[in-house]
């Protein structure tokens, strides 16, 4: 029988971590995601599965613990909110550079700086364009429900190990704090040492006599070799763009106008679609579920179908740049959003559409 729970997004992601058999969680508290660490501590996962849960001395320490754990082929994750994620950027680019898998949750709050503790989506650029230094990308998943917070832990780790790359779950304060019905999965066993060796032949799991030693590093002092490595990374990102785009469409079949929104904004836009259609406006919604890779191809097609696109994001307008690139100037694209932790109402979104595009 399926097991249903009422949980906050932050609790769902923590419970999922235990149930999919994550080996280690390393974090540092910050609103609005402190429940992740709190829930894990209360659950005593060391007794349930042997999972390690540690409050690190700082965000920087936590992300470097991920580097270490991932280097040994372990399933490791961390979570934070915007200012804490900025602190983690050095560790994240090192992980990308050393091709290490791992899961990083950002429960975004208003910025810049310490900003507010309310929900925002102003970390889009940081998440999808690199964030740290160097030519790298993260796979970025954008849940819009508590159920997806739960589900994306397993999805995220699958992708992280498939491509040997850090994966980010880009959430926000609203999804972290709200409670919804969640169907939780079966408890899975953590991988044994032998299983880890089999899955991660590259990991530092102890050298046998019959193989070369494995080295985990992002450093290569020879620029030619570093360029070869960069080409390899870029080929990997191309492969990800080819295979891993996930999106959801709502009432796009006959749409004359299109909202594009992810996360909390996409929930608001679902209601805005209903409100707009009640007024006789044929509006649809495209929700990117993966922000990198971005659903460029589908947007390009829809760009030929609709008269205008409204990018709705709780920011000054970041995702709009990727939408514009996708539609190649075939259709007007405008942005609507609130900032600093204010969540727009579904009515405001419809008004914005009418003012900017009709």
């Amino acid at each position, binding site marked *: 029988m399926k097991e*249903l729970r*009422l949980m906050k997004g932050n609790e769902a992601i923590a419970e999922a971590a235990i149930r999919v058999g994550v080996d280690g969680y390393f974090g540092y508290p910050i*609103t*609005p995601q402190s429940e992740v660490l709190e829930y894990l501590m209360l659950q005593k996962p060391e007794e349930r599965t042997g999972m390690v849960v540690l409050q690190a001395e700082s965000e920087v320490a936590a992300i470097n613990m991920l580097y270490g754990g991932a280097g040994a082929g372990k399933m490791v994750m961390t979570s934070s909110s915007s200012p804490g994620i900025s602190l983690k950027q050095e560790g994240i680019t090192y992980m990308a550079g050393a091709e290490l898998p791992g899961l990083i949750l950002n429960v975004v709050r208003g910025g810049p700086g310490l900003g*507010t*503790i*309310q929900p925002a989506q102003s970390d889009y650029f940081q998440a999808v364009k690199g964030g740290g230094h160097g030519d790298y990308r993260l796979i970025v998943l954008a849940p819009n429900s508590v159920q997806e917070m739960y589900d994306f832990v397993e999805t995220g780790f699958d992708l992280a190990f498939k491509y040997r790359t850090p994966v980010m779950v880009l959430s926000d*304060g*609203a999804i972290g*704090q*709200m*409670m*919804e*019905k969640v169907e939780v999965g079966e408890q899975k066993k953590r991988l044994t040492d032998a299983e880890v060796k089999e899955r991660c032949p590259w990991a530092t799991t102890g050298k046998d006599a019959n193989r070369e030693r494995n080295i985990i590093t992002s450093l290569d002092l020879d620029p030619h070799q570093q360029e070869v490595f960069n080409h390899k990374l870029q080929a990997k990102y191309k492969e990800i763009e080819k295979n891993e785009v996930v999106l959801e469409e709502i009432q796009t079949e006959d749409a004359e106008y299109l909202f594009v929104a992810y996360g*909390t904004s996409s*929930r*608001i836009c*679902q*209601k*805005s679609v*209903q409100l707009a259609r009640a007024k006789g406006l044929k509006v649809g919604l495209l929700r990117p579920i993966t922000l990198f890779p971005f659903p460029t191809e589908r947007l390009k097609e829809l760009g030929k179908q609709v008269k205008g696109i409204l990018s709705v994001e709780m920011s000054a307008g970041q995702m709009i740049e990727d939408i514009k690139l996708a539609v190649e100037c075939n259709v007007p694209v405008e942005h609507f959003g609130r900032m600093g932790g204010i*969540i727009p*109402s*579904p*009515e405001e979104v419809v008004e914005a559409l009418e003012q900017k595009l009709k």
Partner: protein
Amino acid sequence: MTEEIIIAGFGGQGVLSMGKIMCYSGIVQGQEVTWMPSYGPEMRGGTANVTVIISDERISSPIISEYDTAIILNQQSMDKFESMVKAGGTLIYDGNGITRHPERKDINIFRVDAAAEAAKMETTKTFNMIVLGGFLKIKPIVKMENVIAGLKKSLPERYHHLIPVNEKAVNRGTEIVQEIQKA
């Protein structure tokens, strides 16, 4: 069926727990639910509110600006949310501490004096359950047996001996709710 509810009052009145019990009850009877709290500075002494949506369908926005029902437990919340009830919607309030009573003529208004009633019960902490009883009398969107099942799920086991007191409080709420105005 979709019911969009705001519950608003002081921190400590059990606003958030009342919303949680509604959600659990909804889950027990197979519905979709969302519970979206106000969080932040206001939690630390001041007003607390939560938006609860219970629906037979997938729920779109968890954040809304108009409600089918507002359950209002202090004056600040009355000032903020009275205008946000949909025309023809329902406003339920506790008269305790209310200096300006609701003025709209296009909504249904009910009063449930739960604070006064809670003072007469074994524990005043049943206040929110009395309010919930009043709400369920007017809008029976979740069945009483599912509320009890929901209570069992939302309360840690060490508090399960309090379920009968809570049940009594919910029943008391259904008895004392008074209709003030029909739209």
